């Protein structure tokens, strides 16, 4: 979604919520003989689970497995979270639900587009002086196709609660209680932009991803600053809506008072504020509300204040984050404010040294605790049907802390490893503690399924797909000497280019009749080129390690046959253990080396070949199939409630119910 479209979309969200009563749940009232609790722990790796069970660190996992079982869970190709969770949601493969990557491309202009949502600006607007007033709301559309399994349950009056499901923003239409998860933007319309106010800006790279660095000055024990918000599309010149705030520093003690709008609070150095509401004025009588956290990192000698991404306020959501529209308000009334951005952990702030490891963990533990409180709240009233609950911390911790578990990793730091080398194990133990905490809600009627979308592996080396395509002659540049400059594919000579890389696993052919400047003929020329590329990709050897970076180059048309095949790439790269796409290649860059070392804190990943990084399936009932996959879990859920599995679904039931 473009940021400028954000506010236009809020209008339709607001109108929508007015049109429907807030607390009326529709179908889904049936008393079911069983209850199904599904805990989605993103990135939970079956090998790590098994290892920690052997060490005796996961007694509650072990107890559930003893009653039922543990199996590696076949993940999606590619094993990216939006794709994998969409497999689970629909019981379809990517060619059936239409999501192949975080990013797709528009074949008209070769530009990246978000796979999960499509935004449309309002068609009718009027100009009034400096103001632009939309006469209709814009639209934001979920691009995932196929019916969600809870919609099938609803058709049979079976109740379900779906909390923080990825690939479900905006939430699929239902009258059951759902809260959107990964894919839900912050108030800027982005996946998360923090703000950092410092009198020492030189310490941080100003051009960092996921954050903005602001230079501020302490004058007379005061700091004046501005918090940026969404683009104000109610104004013709479309400036950013902003809120000014002041920080009053105690002249002696490391303490400060922050005044922002109606909020006024005091923080000690190294103290977090908890959620604070901010209102961005748009036009007389209209503002947009968000929530954010402040962290007073340092008062002296340098003033440093971190402000988290501004999340959509769940007590007054500007965009549709839940169904029915009042569900998030109900949760706030019961539990207080909570994070709404899809992935709340601020990995960018950690990666860019704005937050330390300790500060990152403190914040993420707070998010996790919010989630657990919400889970407990729902468990207390879980009497029938299905409850799905998603946790992101397992994924995010493994992305950020893998480097400290492995002395061979290029980002390994022995000093940090002394303190944080056990963080990955710790998050698995925290999940075990979660199971202990909810044990009392699990009765003999409750079937417990713990699942993940993929496993994990180290990210030590990055593959520059576009550089390789250029070096091997499949991608031609008009000005090769400036290949890494300019915007996306700015110097590409499409009249001579046969292939290009975009997204985290995707290689596309410049196909005639599909791409606007395609040159490869459909049919034999296309088929031969795809095969040639797949073979060459699989035979590349990393001169540094002697390994093959690409374990499998899947030819998409050979593995998928559904109606949305054309949305996806022609070849899906399945990386080898330790490898991933490079940092620059997903958005069309051409760095100097074909393979580069990853020295970022983001050091674990899951872009590998599906067979190398399966997810996890754990249940308190026997798993009767030796190699279950994500779509089998969907079929299992449908089957558990005695419903017929739709013919288009790929899976089959895998739990034995006695």
């Amino acid at each position, binding site marked *: 979604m473009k940021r400028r479209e954000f506010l236009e979309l809020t209008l339709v969200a607001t109108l929508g919520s007015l049109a429907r009563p807030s607390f009326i749940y529709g179908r889904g009232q049936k008393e079911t003989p069983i209850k199904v609790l599904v805990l989605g722990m993103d990135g939970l790796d079956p090998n790590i689970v098994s290892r920690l069970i052997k060490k005796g660190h996961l007694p509650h996992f072990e107890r559930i497995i003893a009653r039922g079982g543990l199996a590696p869970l076949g993940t999606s190709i590619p094993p990216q979270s939006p794709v994998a969770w969409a497999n689970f949601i629909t019981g379809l493969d990517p060619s059936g639900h239409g999501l192949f990557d975080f990013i797709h491309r528009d074949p008209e202009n070769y530009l990246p587009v*978000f796979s999960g949502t499509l935004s449309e600006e309002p068609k009718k607007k009027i100009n009034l002086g400096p103001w632009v007033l939309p006469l209709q709301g814009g639209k934001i559309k979920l691009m995932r196709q196929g019916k969600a399994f809870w919609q099938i349950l609803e058709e049979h009056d079976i109740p379900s609660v779906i909390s923080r499901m990825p690939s479900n923003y905006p939430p699929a239409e239902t009258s059951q209680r759902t809260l959107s998860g990964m894919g839900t933007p912050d108030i800027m319309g982005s996946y*998360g932009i923090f703000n950092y106010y410092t009198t020492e800006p030189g310490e941080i790279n100003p051009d960092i*991803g996921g954050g903005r660095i602001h230079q501020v000055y302490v004058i007379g024990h005061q700091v004046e600053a501005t918090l940026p918000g969404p683009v104000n599309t109610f104004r013709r010149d479309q400036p950013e809506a902003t809120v000014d705030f002041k920080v009053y520093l105690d002249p002696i003690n490391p303490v400060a008072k922050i005044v922002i709008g109606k909020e006024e609070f005091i923080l000690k150095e190294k103290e977090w504020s908890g959620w604070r509401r901010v209102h961005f004025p748009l036009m007389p009588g209209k503002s947009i509300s968000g929530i954010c956290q402040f962290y007073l990192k340092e008062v002296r000698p340098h003033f440093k204040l971190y402000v988290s991404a501004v999340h959509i306020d769940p007590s007054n959501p500007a965009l549709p984050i839940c169904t029915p529209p009042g569900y998030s308000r109900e949760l706030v009334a019961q539990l207080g404010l909570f994070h709404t951005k899809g992935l709340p952990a601020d990995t960018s702030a950690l990666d860019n040294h704005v937050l330390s490891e300790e500060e990152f963990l403190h914040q993420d533990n707070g998010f996790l605790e919010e989630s657990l409180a919400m889970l407990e709240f729902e468990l207390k009233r879980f009497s029938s049907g299905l409850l799905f609950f998603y946790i992101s911390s397992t994924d995010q911790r493994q992305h950020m802390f893998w480097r400290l578990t492995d002395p061979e990793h290029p980002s390994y730091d022995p000093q940090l490893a002394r303190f944080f080398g056990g963080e990955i194990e710790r998050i698995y133990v925290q999940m075990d503690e979660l199971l202990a905490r909810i044990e009392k809600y699990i009765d003999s009627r409750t079937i417990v399924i713990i699942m993940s979308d993929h496993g994990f592996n180290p990210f030590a080396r990055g593959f520059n797909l576009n550089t390789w395509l250029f070096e091997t002659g499949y991608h031609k540049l008009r000005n090769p000497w400036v290949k890494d400059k300019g915007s996306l594919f700015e110097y590409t000579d499409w009249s001579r280019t046969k292939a290009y890389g975009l997204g985290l696993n995707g290689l596309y052919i410049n196909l005639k009749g599909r791409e606007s400047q395609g040159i490869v003929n459909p049919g034999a020329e296309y088929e031969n080129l795809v095969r040639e590329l797949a073979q060459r990709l699989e035979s590349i050897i990393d001169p540094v390690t002697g390994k093959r970076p690409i374990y499998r180059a899947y030819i998409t048309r050979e593995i998928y046959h559904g109606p949305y095949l054309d949305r996806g790439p022609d070849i899906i790269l399945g990386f080898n253990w330790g490898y991933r796409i490079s940092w620059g290649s997903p958005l069309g860059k051409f760095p100097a080396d074909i393979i580069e070392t990853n020295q970022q804190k983001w050091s674990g990943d899951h872009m590998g070949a599906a067979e190398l990084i399966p997810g996890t399936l754990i249940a308190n009932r026997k798993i009767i199939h030796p190699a279950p996959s994500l779509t089998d879990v969907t079929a299992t859920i449908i089957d558990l409630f005695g419903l017929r599995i739709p013919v288009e679904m790929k899976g089959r039931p895998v739990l034995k119910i006695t």
Partner: protein
Amino acid sequence: MGKAKIKIDKHLFDKIKRYASLAGYASPEEFITHCLEREVAKLDEAETEEEIKKKLKGLGYIS
């Protein structure tokens, strides 16, 4: 639709007139409008690219 006037260097305008005629445009105005529309469309696309980069950077998968 409202109209707006802009000032343009006389020497440049003479060239525009000449090329507009050669390229088959009905008038210099039509040629200028076409050129500007094309450039604005490029900027719109560039903004989309920047926006998507910002959004993804928040996710953590690209730099």
